[in-house]
């Protein structure tokens, strides 16, 4: 579904406008805290989507780069003082670029494999980095964890700077996605996802575009990791490099809709808020894990393509039915669903989903 001209930017303006104004409303701390985490996951899902959604390379190891970003900021400020509290944010671009560069050789090796093997290779990467974080005690503090000085922000508006920075980061992530979708890069990624060998055969620069997607994706993820570490103040290997974070990112993208601009954001807002709420109400009990897994399974089985593509499909079918129905029923009334006049369009392999 292609939105009429002007709707897209207007939607984005409203979305970011509302999010920018929200903290002014004197929200409770727990609510703002929840929003901070939601934004973190929105950025990471959007970043994951570049690789897992558009290029069709389902990485399960993104949290490794999240952890690298987290440790990078903590280690840097063990040797440098924090004065006004904004220094860690200024370090973010450096961390993003640095991790993207580190990711380049990793991608070059991992992307020799496809689809499911790629997922496996990236998950082993996750455990490699986690083992390193545990074992390089001199550097990371091992299982004892590592800490960063608390930000000297006034406690009344403590979350604000984190919130604002994350909002900017989300705008960047979505802007990059948008730019990719409108450019040759997006088309090349779609070609890679559909059939990589054929794409290479007709001259798509498969390798370059894959590596680009990977590096941008992990760079953004690392920046979120750095913000998370600064926000938490104290990090442990098992939380900085937690397989559940990877799973959440993937699930959010799948829930919202892969290879769409808004899908990962929608998924993040629904799931992270639900998750925070569940964790809040069920506490640390293990029923939480069961509930989470069940939500996961139900989403996968009922909406394998995600919320956004499902809605779009439904709207498209409805619109076409109305057009066909128009002469017979002037009121534009809906036909019953069991007598469709138009043959049900099967989804093309390369889905064009722009919203």
């Amino acid at each position, binding site marked *: 579904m292609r939105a009429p001209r002007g709707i897209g930017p207007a939607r984005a303006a409203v979305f970011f406008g509302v999010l920018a104004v929200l903290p002014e409303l004197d929200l409770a701390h727990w609510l703002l805290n929840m929003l901070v985490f939601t934004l973190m996951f929105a950025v990471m899902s959007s970043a994951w989507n570049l690789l897992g959604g558009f290029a*069709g390379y*389902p990485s*399960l190891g993104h949290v490794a780069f999240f952890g690298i970003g987290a440790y990078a900021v903590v280690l840097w400020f063990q040797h440098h003082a924090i004065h006004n509290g904004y220094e860690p944010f200024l370090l973010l671009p450096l961390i993003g670029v640095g991790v993207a560069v580190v990711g380049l050789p990793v991608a070059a*090796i*991992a992307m*020799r*494999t496809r*689809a*499911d*093997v790629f*997922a*496996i*290779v990236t*998950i*082993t*990467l*996750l*455990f*490699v980095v986690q*083992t*390193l974080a*545990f*074992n390089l005690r001199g550097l990371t503090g091992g299982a004892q964890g590592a800490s960063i000085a608390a930000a000297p922000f006034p406690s009344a508006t403590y979350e604000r700077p984190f919130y604002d920075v994350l909002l900017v980061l989300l705008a960047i992530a979505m802007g990059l996605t948008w730019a990719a979708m409108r450019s040759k890069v997006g088309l090349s990624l779609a070609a890679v996802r559909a059939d990589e060998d054929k794409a290479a055969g007709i001259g798509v620069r498969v390798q370059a575009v894959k590596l680009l997607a990977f590096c941008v994706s992990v760079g953004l993820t690392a920046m979120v990791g750095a913000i998370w570490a600064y926000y938490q103040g104290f990090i442990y290997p098992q939380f900085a490099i937690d*397989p559940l974070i990877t*799973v959440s990112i*993937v*699930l959010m993208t*799948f829930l919202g809709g892969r290879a769409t601009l808004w899908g990962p954001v929608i998924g993040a807002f629904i799931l992270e808020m639900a998750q925070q709420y569940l964790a809040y109400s069920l506490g640390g009990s*293990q*029923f*939480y*894990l*069961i*509930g*989470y*897994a*069940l939500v*996961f*399974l139900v989403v*996968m*089985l009922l909406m*394998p393509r995600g919320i956004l593509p499902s809605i779009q499909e439904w709207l498209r079918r409805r619109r076409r039915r109305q057009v066909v129905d128009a002469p017979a029923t002037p009121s534009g009334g809906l036909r019953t669903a069991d007598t469709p006049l138009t043959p049900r369009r099967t989804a093309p*392999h390369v889905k064009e989903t722009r919203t």
Partner: protein
Amino acid sequence: MHALIQGIILGVLTAGVYALMASGQTLIFGIMKIVNMAQGALVILGAYLSYQLFTSFGIDPFLAIPITTVIMFMVGVAVQLVFLRPLHSDDRSQLSVLVTFAVALLVEGVMSVIWSTSDRSINTSYANASWTVLGYQITLVRLWAFLLSLLALALLYLLLNRTRFGRAVRASVQNPESARLLGVESERVAAIGFGLGAATAAAAGSMYGLLYPFNSGSHYDLISRLLSIVVLGGLGSIGGAVTGALIISVSSAVVASTISPSWSQMTFFVVLLLVLLVRPRGLFGAAVRGAI
């Protein structure tokens, strides 16, 4: 030198159990092209089952294997029917990774509710018995586990190569479409195949529970090992799974005995990355495509 040989002995003995777990994993991939992320969780579930049978009824974990395999076979069939069969075929391979991961989380959640998250271990009377041969220590439990794993692998081999069901499985692995045309009921083969994979997990789990303490979160560690093994050997090849298990188990045991146990986990990831650098399909991935 002594530490090196001791490491190799330990590695080879441990490899049997891992080969058994990995063979189930690779069998499931061979039949359905599904990467079963829940295999580790199923192994731990098998370990808990035999723990429960041992503490409640005093059944020896080795003797409990027939019971746990039957239970887990049914669990496996149920997972296939409820969660995997409804997936659409066009993006099955991607979705199945996520769905089986969710199954792993579900199993983990259930296990931590039933047995809590603290470490459990099965303390049999013979747990610490060992022989000393030429100055090298051989733990009796490990030796038995190794021999039993070999037996189970042999049974699996016979099942796949000497029975009608095995022929149907091999046909599905080689060419699913033709197999279906020739009357192989692919859904049934898939269900039984997943059940078999879970049954190997149960058998391996009973032995794993004897060898190591475990808790509901142990499956993360296990699944990363198992995935390294099957990818190293080449997905879908049982011979590859056995070879991969040997390489990974021996190399990590050698590193543990000669350098430091905390680096042993790192070893097999490094081995894996090195192999993938040279052969992205794994050791046996392309050469025996379709063979199992």
